[in-house]
């Protein structure tokens, strides 16, 4: 694989992405909301304490929070819910970019001249995948950094420790990219079959369902996933992504694009 070609594809994809207002809004609005929403929620919930049964269940899973005051425990529990939301960015943004990019090329029929150049399909796919993955992962990481900086100011040192503990770091920095990979693969596979980016996003959005499930389990206190849990999830999700990539590569073969993509 020639890095020069991959970089050329990547540069063009970025150029088009920043000129697509709808796509740009899709990339920028969720991070802004996710930075502000936890702080607003924290300011409300932080003034209350958790119901005794829920507080007990939380402390069973997070004994290190035992020293927290009731308000801090409530705040820690509240912000903990948002980790899963940070995983939505590397899930949704790459899906949106990949589907817009691939279906956009289908509609404009711009892939044939590209494939007529001395480029390998693996280079084309790598360029497109990276162009979709990088903004999603970067948005997740950047938003997280802004979030913990603000959290340290708003919630104080105890909750800063919560949002920067190993489970958060593993979730954001390891599981996030793995989720992004699955999302890109879903975008590639679905986009090869449909001609409307919104339909592709709805179908490809199935990858977000497990993340929603984790969110619900955390919100109800059923399970609070720790660092090892997120690392294990990351391995499983990455394995699914890599397996799906093989199918994606086959759908992205030169002849398949020219003769079957309609």
């Amino acid at each position: 694989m020639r890095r020069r070609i991959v970089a050329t594809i990547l540069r063009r994809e970025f150029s088009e992405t920043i000129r697509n207002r709808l796509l740009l809004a899709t990339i920028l609005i969720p991070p802004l909301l996710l930075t502000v929403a936890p702080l607003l929620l924290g300011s409300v919930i932080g003034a209350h304490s958790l119901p005794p049964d829920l507080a007990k269940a939380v402390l069973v899973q997070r004994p290190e929070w035992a020293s927290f005051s009731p308000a801090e425990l409530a705040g820690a529990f509240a912000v903990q819910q948002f980790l899963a939301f940070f995983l939505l960015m590397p899930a949704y943004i790459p899906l949106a970019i990949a589907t817009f990019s691939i279906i956009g090329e289908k509609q404009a029929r711009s892939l044939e001249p590209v494939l007529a150049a001395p480029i390998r399909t693996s280079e084309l796919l790598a360029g497109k995948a990276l162009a979709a993955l990088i903004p999603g992962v970067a948005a997740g990481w950047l938003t997280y950094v802004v979030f913990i900086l603000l959290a340290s100011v708003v919630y104080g040192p105890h909750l800063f420790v919560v949002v920067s503990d190993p489970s958060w770091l593993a979730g954001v920095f390891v599981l996030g990219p793995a989720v992004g990979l699955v999302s890109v693969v879903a975008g590639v596979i679905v986009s090869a079959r449909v001609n409307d980016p919104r339909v592709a996003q709805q179908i490809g959005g199935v990858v977000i369902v497990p993340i929603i499930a984790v969110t619900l389990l955390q919100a109800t206190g059923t399970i609070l996933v720790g660092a090892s849990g997120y690392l294990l999830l990351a391995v499983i999700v990455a394995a699914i992504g890599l397996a799906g990539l093989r199918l994606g590569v086959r759908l992205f073969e030169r002849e398949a694009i020219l003769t079957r993509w309609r």
Partner: protein
Amino acid sequence: MGLGRRFGATWAVRGMDFEVPRGRVLGLLGPNGAGKTTTVRMLTALIEPTEGTATIDGFDVRTQPDEVRARVGILTETPGLYDKLSAEANLDFFGRLYGLDAATRADRIEHYLRLFSLWERRRDVAGTFSKGMKQKLAIARALIHDPAVIFLDEPTAALDPEAAYVVREAIEGLRQAGRTIVLATHNLDEADRLCDQVAFVRGGLLRIDSPARLRGSLAGGQVEIRLAERALDDGLLAIATGIEGVGSAHFDGDRLVVEAAEPSRVTPSLVRALAGAGAAILEVRPAATSLESVYFEVMGVQPGANGEAA
């Protein structure tokens, strides 16, 4: 040689055998679905032939596809531009894909944008261009890496007459510059004007020759003589049929149509004899045969029969 491609159980095209000398223009003529685009895609190493092979500038499309792709430029059926990028950025992207350095890219981008009168619009996004301008930009894109062979697939299809004229002029310019071009089209006039050779294609190669020879092959020996008057009808017919080599003669309006196996051999004697008999001859010419007539003959269809075989 023997180039063919099958999709599933159906052969799109097979048995394609032809050669295009350097600097010449070959037209691939045929109805929709005849296999022109499939042939172009095989020759540009976009899809692999099911049988046979071809060499482009000495490289085999089957075994050396990367080398072939580096040496061909293609204008696809639709321009396939990146509408959100400027004309300049579209060309720069392809220049990078073909591995051109920055200075060469800049030189060629300026050269082709000026050549196709797009230089003033170089910073405008392609999405704002007219169809003709987009097509010219797509041709510039096909030329950016200075390919040995240029493939133009339906370059004027879906263009209005003005845009089609502009694109044809651009192709004419390339022809005069000595480029080797393969032009897939169903525009017979375009093929007649631009091509040195025409290949009729429908599921395979039906016939290939120069437009002039193709027309000549169908004319089958007719001379038309336009007269100022018809006072000597019967006498002229008798004189014409009496000349050695003339098969038959008849009047069609003010024209005397003479059938002969070799019109060029009998025409001087014919003209002398008719003039000697007092005929007022206004014009003498071989019976005009258009490429369209040849097309219908070769394809085995009747005009107006919706393309069904006669």
